[in-house]
């Protein structure tokens, strides 16, 4: 059981690191949002693996709620992207400076 859990946690950490790098190094807002989804998925995988290891369904319930929050986050985030794009005609994060100061 231990070894199995370790494999799932390793995979999940690799996915999380990939998402973090994407969030830090890409400048396209939409790709940054997708990197956030990648990180959320890595965390969900951890939760399901731990729920199976601990023989408790609470982890899977939590994943259900995380998916619902991720849907809300994607809807609001993409609405903000559309609003920003209508004002500035760009979604390059390095050209959007009004939130910076």
């Amino acid at each position: 059981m231990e070894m199995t859990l370790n494999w799932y946690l390793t995979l999940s950490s690799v996915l999380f690191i990939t998402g973090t790098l994407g969030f830090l190094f890409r400048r396209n807002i939409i790709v940054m949002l997708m990197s956030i989804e990648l990180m959320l998925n890595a965390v969900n995988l951890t939760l399901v693996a731990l729920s199976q290891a601990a023989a408790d369904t609470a982890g899977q319930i939590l994943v259900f709620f995380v998916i619902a929050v991720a849907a809300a986050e994607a809807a609001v985030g993409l609405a903000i992207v559309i609003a920003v794009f209508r004002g500035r005609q760009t979604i390059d994060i390095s050209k959007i400076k009004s939130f910076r100061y």
Partner: protein
Amino acid sequence: MAGQILFFALAVTAIAAGVGVVWSRSPINSALWLILNLFCIAGLYLTLNAQFIAVIQILVYAGAIMVLFLFVIMLLNLSEMPSVTRFTIARLFGFFLVMGVLALLTYAVAAGLDVLPERIVPAAAAVSGSPSTLARSLFTEYALPFEIIGILLLAATVGAVIIAKRKPV
């Protein structure tokens, strides 16, 4: 044996698709890679005996959220967006061939190091992730959070419409 190779195949493909999300030049390519990644993770949920979460993952993530992403990408009509890489059967075949070889290599290395994952779900499954099991606790023990998440989704829908409709700032 088959379950272990399945785990490695799904894991390797998920990681490759995750790198593809970050690496692709075009947002459309990123979105398509993310869909592949979500399907692989849904398969991993199935290996963990979490059927309900796997179905929800495909319906909500790969269905609703990714359609929203693709819709917004195409709505914005970015002029500087590079064209999508040409999609051919040969590329697809090559990708899955490489992933299969990589999965077998990972399996062989793990077997050589004697750290193969054991059978993930014991014969008498500790937790069943079937809809009936989850629904029982979702509608009794976690009824209040369930209602709150419904209100959150309603608020997010209204907020998204208001933000996207507002006059440009």
